[in-house]
């Protein structure tokens, strides 16, 4: 069914957020990142550059790591969305999160939420990554604290742990 909304018209958007059906109001120009934060209180979606460059707002949409600042809430009706709030296991942090803590792969943490979402998709597609592949994936995220070395180590170690346990 085709969809038509007038400028400024606030429409109800329903989607699946971290396993729960959620809905909120958005006018056509509302960024998905703003919708997730302001309407659905998913404050783990961090807003950095708002033009797709910094990677802070990266989320999983239908399992794929994508920017949430360069799409609009009206586009994602019915989508399955995971933010950093939905990544942990029921019994605690997931292996990637544990490895980040162990390796001190974050300092201020602003970029971390987006990176953790990217890594979730990346390791599903590339369970045995080479360091160069990890760095290629990380080129879509800007971290100004760590210099990336600890992030790379954490991801490689988490990948090995996930392979061992599966």
């Amino acid at each position, binding site marked *: *069914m*085709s*969809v*038509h*909304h*007038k*400028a*400024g018209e606030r429409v109800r958007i329903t989607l699946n957020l971290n396993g729960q059906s959620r809905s909120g109001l958005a*006018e*056509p*120009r509302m*960024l998905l990142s*703003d919708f997730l934060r302001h309407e659905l209180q998913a404050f783990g979606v961090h807003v950095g550059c*708002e*033009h*797709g*460059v910094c*990677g802070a707002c*990266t989320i999983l949409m239908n399992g*794929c*790591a*994508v*920017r949430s*600042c*360069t*799409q*609009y809430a*009206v*586009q994602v009706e019915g989508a399955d969305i995971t933010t950093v709030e939905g990544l942990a296991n029921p019994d605690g942090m997931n292996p990637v999160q544990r490895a980040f803590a162990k390796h001190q792969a974050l300092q201020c943490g602003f970029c971390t939420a987006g990176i953790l979402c*990217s890594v979730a*998709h*990346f390791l599903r597609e590339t369970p045995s990554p080479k360091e160069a592949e990890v760095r*290629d*994936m990380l*080129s*879509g*995220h800007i971290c100004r604290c760590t210099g990336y070395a600890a992030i790379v180590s954490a991801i490689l170690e988490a990948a090995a742990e996930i392979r061992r346990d599966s």
Partner: protein
Amino acid sequence: MKPVAFDYHRPNTIAEAVALLDDMKEEAGVLAGGMTLGPMLNMRLVRPRAVVDITRIEALRSIAIAGNTIVTGACVVQSEALRSDVVARELPLLALALPWVGHFQTRNRGTLGGSVAHADPSAEIPLALVVSGGTVVLRSRRRERRVPAGEFFLGALVTARRPDEMIVALEWPRTPADAGCAFAEIAQRHGDFAIVAAACCLRVDADGCLQALSFGLGGVESRPVALDVRRFIGKPATDVANDLPVFAAAGITPMDDRAASAEYRAALTEVLAERVFQDALSRATKRERPAA
């Protein structure tokens, strides 16, 4: 950074989409993956009255083989193309160009058609299309027309697309099995806009002479350019490897801007011409294809 208020339309069919464009012409912006239109909307570099979201039109999402042509729908997502066996086997140049397009996270959303429609001078997919001798398929309410890629890109962010038209597909000639292709670029950081990008496809005969050659550059002029390299056909590949870099640098009028001087772009052109020619030659000799 928020866009100006716009009407939002999400048609389900191409017919509905082109009817909307016919109605609104230049007042409408066509939104696919949003990897270029999104930032431009957010920065208010564009202020369309309406956005026509074409991401849910199923007919735009297929990769099909039609005789000696591979047809990629406008909304094929870049990461889907990168995973496609058909692209890896039949369009090695595109397969080699795609890892250079943006980042993992933007390729999961950005489309082949969107990159072509936007026509950034340094974009990889337009360069691959031009060097492949591909065609852009445009549809309006009244008709469909096909524009050769070499005539589609008119300048930086300017194309032959009319306001009532949308790109529905890209047509790529099938790459012969004995061809070797290569793609390389230099940017300030991986995934950033290329200062210079180069693409090459070639075939050699049993004596090591060139049977076919295409070579092009992105980021150098205001649009991707395929150089006229017919003079090298029939020449020994070892000689062409020496001559092509100098010929390429002499045949361009490089941009001079904040990212790089014209002189630096000319120097990179020589370096990259040699690199892609040698890589393509080595792949043609080994009959190597990129892995999907």
